[in-house]
């Protein structure tokens, strides 16, 4: 596919995006093609839901996402609270979280934490549970996500039992919710850089 720099210039803010996210020009181009593919109505924005039916709109075109148990949570992550559309820049910024961590990257303290750092990846995963973005995973939120992941395969009692144990394990300050720090502590042994990264080719 065309990878010459001249066609990247047709994309607004391409250079800034490349700087900010670390994607190469070729990646930005491919992601833009993908964005345009998902943007069926050609309005430059991806939309959250189709108003009359409340079905996932543009992301609904991706079959594999439709059968992902937390597909809805993932889609919501693209949209800022209250927003129902997402433009290309935001689309790329979210995807930047999944670039492999640059191990030897040295940066001065003034620079913002890069999108693909371990902390940012962890925050993204936290958001999968913390749907209302209040900084805490409440019991109700955890139950909701568990129900989405397990569907009708488990009973209500089993669900409650699972949630109970998960909170007991992670909730250190006994406020019946899991804060981001508690989340991080509970997962400190997991190799998040590897598990939450996608290898982008060329």
């Amino acid at each position, binding site marked *: *596919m*065309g*990878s*010459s720099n001249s066609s990247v210039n047709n994309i607004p803010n391409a250079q800034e995006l490349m700087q900010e996210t670390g994607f190469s020009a070729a990646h930005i181009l*491919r*992601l833009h093609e*993908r964005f345009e*593919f*998902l943007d069926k109505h050609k309005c430059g924005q991806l939309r959250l839901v189709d108003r009359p039916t409340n079905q996932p709109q543009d*992301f*609904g*075109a*991706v*079959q*594999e*996402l*439709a*059968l*992902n*148990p*937390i597909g809805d949570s*993932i889609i919501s992550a693209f949209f800022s609270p209250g927003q129902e559309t997402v433009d290309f820049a935001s689309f790329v910024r979210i*995807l930047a979280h*999944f670039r492999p961590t640059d191990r030897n990257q040295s940066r001065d303290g003034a620079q913002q934490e890069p999108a693909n750092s371990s902390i940012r990846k962890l925050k*993204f*995963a936290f958001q*999968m*549970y913390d749907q209302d973005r209040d900084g805490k995973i409440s019991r109700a939120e955890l139950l909701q*996500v*568990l129900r989405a*992941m*397990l*569907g*009708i*395969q*488990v009973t209500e*009692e*089993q669900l409650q*039992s*699972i949630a*109970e*144990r*998960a909170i007991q*394990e*992670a909730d250190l300050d006994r406020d019946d919710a*899991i804060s981001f720090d508690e*989340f991080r502590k*509970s*997962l400190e*042994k*997991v190799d*998040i850089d590897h*598990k*939450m*990264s*996608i*290898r*982008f*080719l*060329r």
Partner: protein
Amino acid sequence: MEGDFWAAAIWALEIWLYLIISTIMIPAMFGFSLGISETYMTILVQTLEWATLKIQKANADERTLKSSPSNGLIQREDGSMEKELEELRRSRPKPPVGGDFTLSDCFYFTRRGIESIVEDEVTQRFSSEELVSWNLLTRTNNDFQYISLKLTLVYGLGIFVRYCILAPLRITLACIGLTWLVIGTSAVGLLPNWRIKFWLSEWVHVMCYRICARGLSATIRYHNRENKPKKGGICVANHTSPIDIVILCNDGCYAMVGQVHGGLMGVIQRAMVRSCPHVWFERAEMKDRHLVTKRLKDHVNDKTKLPILIFPEGTCVNNTSVMMFKKGSFEIGATIYPVAIKYDLKFGDAFWNSSKYSMVSYLLRMMTSWALVCNVWYLPAMHQQEGEDAVQFANRVKSAIAHRGGLVDLQWDGGLKRAKVKESFKEQQQKQYSSMVVGDDSSSFFLSSLTV
């Protein structure tokens, strides 16, 4: 003066037609070859090899040549759900009670979800495959870099040859082929049902398809012809374009299955069915699955009728993979003869992207490509085994075809590119995950949580 001009034009046209008939049609009709297309193909292959070397040499310093001809933007992890979740959970011991759930489980699903947003396996298969190296066609040239004068000249010459010499020739041939198909089959249809009618009908069909194949400069290599489909069976193949029919019918006669169309297609369909039985359905009949199955069964059980040709994918795919086979043809209980078709991309991309090109513009693109080169493998016949249902049988046949043709075997339904995913697929995922969380024996789970 004008009269002279027209007389000259008609004379030129006559010469043109006589040339075509003698050098291309007559050999095609009788199945021998004068060697013209072979010479053309040899020249073409050598030219493309030369061009590839030139481009590679030029790009060697810049390292812009891709190492693998993949369409992919990302590298997918191939681990199963079980394997990946096990790895995620390794960092802590399994709890005795309350299910084996950990907060890091979502990492797996999140990553899979994001991977599919960036690139999903289904959509990939509905765009043309990418070439390893440019094949001197304008349409595949995404990244034009001036390399050398010679290359550009050859490219220009190629355009002239393809559009001004080959295309008119091919269009003429295709028209002749189709006209002859209609006339020939109608003529044969007038004969009473003597033995000779079947023989003539087959001959007319094969002849017309051969002319059409010449009309596309098709070079077809058939492998394992001892496995060719026999009467009373069903021939099953992967689908890339409507030209698949021409490719397969060059080497034998099949009964077609399909919907009755109007217009030109309808004329052809009606003519064909006069000389030998094909299975054409009205639009309304196609909805009734029992009716369809019954008609196919009847055809198959009549041992004098030709093998049926079916493309179970139901849609054209880009020839890098085989999508889910619809189980309808596998429920009939007949012998299945699988066939794998693989096109060589260098000479022309045969994939029909029906959302991008109409049939006519697709055919024109085909006629202005270099040629059509493909391999056809006849696989040994397969039967439905004991205890195997239609879906499993279909998957078994699909794997065999994919394996032989060097294609990727996918379980996705190609028809779903326009429709919604079934709930049952999502339930499958949930089921798989829940067996990792609560285990299959949910009663012990419940008991152990009571003892706490």
